């Protein structure tokens, strides 16, 4: 009967993860947390092995366990972890790092004075200081321009808040209430998880708890190995590129070699371009997190995240490349590079496992940051958000429309009615576009336009839309999709098209049009049933002209 007890403990850990997730969402002050759900929460064992994770985004899959391990490394000598301590960290190059905006809160859990587990969360705080609002810049050349660094600092020591640190944060960020609100939300979520872990141990005993978590990790590994067997063994390789570094330089190649066996999955990024000037760099830790999300999609997508399920995966890369950047490289646009690496492995493997991977999707987070003074309240605002676009078609269905990129997940758009109240902008249209592409037996999902009209007296926009020169990729005879870009439509009608742009000045009445790509098509367009094409015309997903040209109708 012990077997069932272990399973119940495991399920209870997962439930505790869900609860931490909700606490953070419901108490946070940053829309990017409570709407975009750009955060993850988790529980690890004393060594930093991941036991449960609650996710909003797929991107933080390696972030939580690695950050706990790095914490253990730091507090291993003269300075040690004590009951009541809470640590914060955001160093990109160390374990669990992505960019400075993603801050981890690490909470060591003690039971009868013994360290028994960690609860941990990592969330995108809207503001951490630095040169530009939102702490993201496509023209930063060093990390010092990107905001405050927290190199594994105790924000609480033996239960006492580090007031000096709080004052320091307050003085260095543009939206101190929001930033500190997020800090307290993170601590509250970690506390909730810690309480649940302790109640499990109180009920079942520490020994059984340890047995349950070891059993759980082995279970994750077993599930993963079973799934790995369904992927054809072999060596595969491919190349992708970062088109631009924000300074008009590029492209910069990223190379991947994948080795699949029944028990191992190795991705080797050696040979990729050295780290670049600008913020389009990814740290090794960020690279692992990206690889894990793709690996999970092709092995155990329906299972809760569990450290054991990543044991068969290895990521190789020498330090100092564009996907393994080292200090003091700027990394605030890391997410675009990460999505590119995911897309690269995806493209290499998709033909082998078309039941798990569709054709290419928008391949960019298409994040924008618009800041200014609210016309009614005269308060400073920053609208930071990822955008939805088209996904690729697959062997069984048309591509989805209106879905955030693979770096997101259970993340939401910001409702128009809420954003118009909060920020000095008005939305002119929110609609699918007809920029073409994605033709196939199964049609790629349409990309979309969002038009923001500035109604405050002046504003600034920062955006990073990779894929401005490269279309999303079609598969198995399906056509490529379209491009991502953002365009400033000035009051006088002049248009400026951008891929990467930082702090571009906008006047009242200017429009920022964000265009996200249409996904790639799957299969020969000739095989698409005529009635389906006619219906697509009727619905305006494609034009008559496109139907004639690509479907011969």
């Amino acid at each position, binding site marked *: 009967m012990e077997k069932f007890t272990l399973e*119940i403990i495991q399920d209870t850990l997962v439930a505790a993860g869900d609860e931490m997730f909700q606490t953070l969402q419901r108490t946070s002050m940053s*829309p990017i947390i409570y709407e975009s759900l750009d955060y993850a929460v988790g529980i690890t064992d004393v060594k930093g092995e991941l036991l449960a994770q609650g996710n909003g*985004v797929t991107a933080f899959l390696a972030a939580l366990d690695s950050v706990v391990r790095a914490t253990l490394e730091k507090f291993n000598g003269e300075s040690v972890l004590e009951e009541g301590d809470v640590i914060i960290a955001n160093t990109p190059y160390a374990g669990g790092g992505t960019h400075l905006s993603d801050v981890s809160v690490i909470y060591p859990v003690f039971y009868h004075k013994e360290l028994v587990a960690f609860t941990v969360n990592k969330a995108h705080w809207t503001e951490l200081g630095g040169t530009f609002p939102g702490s993201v810049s496509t023209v930063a050349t060093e990390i010092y321009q990107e905001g405050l660094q927290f190199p594994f600092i105790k924000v609480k020591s033996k239960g006492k808040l580090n007031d000096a640190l709080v004052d320091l944060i307050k003085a260095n960020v543009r939206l101190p209430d929001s930033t500190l609100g997020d800090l307290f939300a993170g601590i509250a979520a970690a506390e909730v998880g810690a309480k649940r872990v302790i109640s499990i141990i109180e009920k079942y005993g520490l020994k059984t708890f340890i047995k349950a978590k070891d059993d759980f990790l082995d279970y994750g590994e077993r599930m993963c190995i079973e799934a790995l067997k369904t992927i054809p063994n072999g060596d595969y390789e491919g190349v992708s590129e970062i088109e631009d570094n924000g300074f008009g330089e590029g492209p910069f190649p990223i190379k991947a070699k994948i080795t699949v066996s029944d028990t191992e999955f190795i991705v080797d990024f050696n040979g990729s371009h050295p780290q670049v000037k600008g913020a389009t760099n990814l740290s090794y830790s960020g690279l692992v997190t990206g690889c894990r999300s793709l690996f999970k999609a092709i092995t155990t997508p329906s299972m809760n995240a569990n450290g054991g399920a990543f044991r068969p995966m290895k990521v190789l890369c020498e330090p100092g490349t564009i996907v393994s950047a080292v200090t003091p490289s700027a990394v605030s646009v890391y997410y675009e590079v990460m999505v590119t690496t995911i897309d690269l492995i995806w493209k290499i493997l998709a033909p082998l496992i078309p039941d798990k991977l*569709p054709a290419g999707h928008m391949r960019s987070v298409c994040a924008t940051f618009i800041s200014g003074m609210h016309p009614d309240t005269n308060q400073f605002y920053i609208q930071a958000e990822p955008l939805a676009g088209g996904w690729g078609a697959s062997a069984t269905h048309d591509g989805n429309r*209106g879905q955030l990129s693979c770096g997101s997940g259970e993340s939401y758009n910001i409702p128009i009615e809420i954003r118009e109240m909060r920020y000095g902008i008005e939305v002119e249209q929110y609609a699918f576009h007809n920029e073409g592409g994605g033709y196939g037996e199964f049609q790629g999902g349409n990309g*979309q336009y969002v038009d923001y009209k500035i109604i405050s007296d002046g504003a600034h926009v920062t955006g990073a839309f990779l894929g401005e020169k490269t279309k999303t990729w079609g598969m198995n005879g399906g056509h490529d999709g379209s491009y991502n870009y953002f365009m400033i439509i000035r009051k006088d009608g002049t248009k400026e098209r951008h891929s990467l742009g930082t702090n571009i000045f906008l006047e009242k009445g200017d429009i920022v049009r964000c265009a996200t790509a249409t996904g790639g098509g799957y299969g020969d367009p000739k095989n698409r049933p005529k009635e389906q094409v006619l219906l697509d015309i009727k619905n305006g997903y494609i034009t008559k002209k496109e139907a004639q040209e690509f479907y011969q109708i």
Partner: protein
Amino acid sequence: MRVATDIGGTFTDLVCLEFDKKSGNSLGVKVVKSDTTPSNFEQGILNTIAKGNINLKEIDFFAHGTTVVINALTERKGAKTALITTKGFRDVLEIARCNRPDLFNFNFIKQPPFVPRHLRFEVEERINYKGEINKELNTSTLKSILKTCKEENVESIAICLLHAYKNPKHEIQLLKEIFHLNSDIEIIASHQITREWREYERTSSTVLSGYVLPIAKKYLNNLEERLREKELRNAPFIMQSNGGITSINDVKSNPITMVESGPASGVFGAIALGKVIDKKDLIVLDIGGTTAKCALVENGQVKITTNYKIDHSRTKAGYPIQTPVIDIVEIGNGGGSIAWIDQGGKMHVGPKSAGASPGPAAYGRGGKNLTTTDANIITGRIHPDYFIGGEIQPDYSSIEEASRVLCEKLNASKEDVAKGILRIANANMVNALKLISVNKGHDPRDFSMIVIGGGGAMHGADLARELQVSELIIPPHAGVFSAFGMLMSDVRRDYIRTNVLTLSEKQKETILSIFSEIKDEAVLNFKADNYQQNEMKFTYYADLRYVGQEHYVKVMLTNFSKNTPLKTIIANFHSEHKKQYSFELDAPVELVNFHLVAEVEVEKPDFPKLRVTDRKVEDAIFDTKEVDFDDLGKHDTSFYRRELLEPNMMLKGPAVIAENATTTVVTPLHEVLVDEYGNLIITPQRTA
């Protein structure tokens, strides 16, 4: 006589309270069950009326709850619907919230919208977030829109314009003009359903309302007609998702309010029972065949939420409906939930259910899978003579067959597998129960747990032990408690309106005037059903948050009037936030939604009391058998007939109390007291 009928997925239930005409004393409760008739739901009701031999002429009060709305939605049997919205925004419905809940699955398929793109029309107009008109409404395209609708055989039109929650002027104008141009097509506008913000949620709510409008109207008209033929004097009341009843005419204009009426009435029945026996803090658990639902009642109040979704799961985004629904957590664990083993060798129970057909293996109708019900039989907790109302004996060979695979894969005995299933099922339910209690800052020890539904009493004692609730209550007729609850409901409407403002004395005038505006609307609505303002009771709530947050905490404004100091309200918010989330902030507080509940109390029957004879508790024992209580050991256990138990009788576990619709398991750690109404009050044994 008072009658309530409840149409469920499998059965249509009828509960009738009979009174002595002269003395007014209760003559008891009549319960009738009959199969649900999906092709023609009202027939099921007529069947129960005939089966129960009930003369509608003698009925003073008739309440009704139905699944007709939720069925039309989940089975996609509603009307062909079109949408009219603001220019530039017809794709809001399809873009939805852009999320991918099955987040590790890159081959995810998004749920399609209820209205295809070619039936989503746009009109020129624009209102801003302050409710000001940026661009006047241009209706010159309406004629051509309606022409297309006609050609496409559209039966229903939903109208949802941006910021109409704040200013519905253009929606009202559109309603008028469309009605003028074409009165054949049903029309409904967002402000008639919800006055809360979030354009996708409002659009979805309006579209789904339009989608069910024709079917619900037809059903309600038929029902009214058939009941009138049978000479029912007063028009029936209809159960809504907010736990209140309303007039049939009211619900015809906004039928989406019926979407979760069944579970809501069960919870309200429990609240009504709680009032009678003086228990105001309750955890209500309803275990059916496929799911278990639970709700928390604090001081006699259950929370109302508008975050309701259909077809929603961990892997599906679902479709939101912003209508007031009582706050229920539902999980895929019921009597029919199937036990299965995944590739890594881990056993799970549910969410897949064997349903009513083929049902659990024990039904002997070809069910190949072991279910929670089968596990209860293997452990000896269900008496073979009381299996599905005593109609059939459990099919033991079928159970044997179904358990074989699990036994082999787990290398365990049938008995251990059964206990494992019950442990896992109970753990799932405990997690759901914690979600509404511990996780929201409540201590279960302060609560009584009322269990209803066919499966509630089987698991109640185990769950009560784990949660440490103060006591467990199994009411009589727990199996048909939803219908029972309707007899205990009041006429109720919830008015929720988004209007964001900072809470400060400066804003007090505005707050009072908005509430009074909403109150006037409520009074007007109730007048249409011939209720006077002096009969009405008003309860005020506000959805509050710290400035900068998105999510809010609902706070009741006790005895709200112009004299209520705002600082009391703010203090209540701080403590509620701390209770739920463990911290409070030194930040300004913002009011997001105004929420007014308007009620008219309906004259309700007293709960019938049980008579006391000089019967002894031992007289109720009809068998003694061995029952496996898992970690509490195997015990020779007395089986009691519930119908022979009387007030003030006491018995100690281990025991099993059998009745037609359910079975109550009493562990060796518990004891039972029967109260004057026949409720089984189960508590830990004092001397254990």
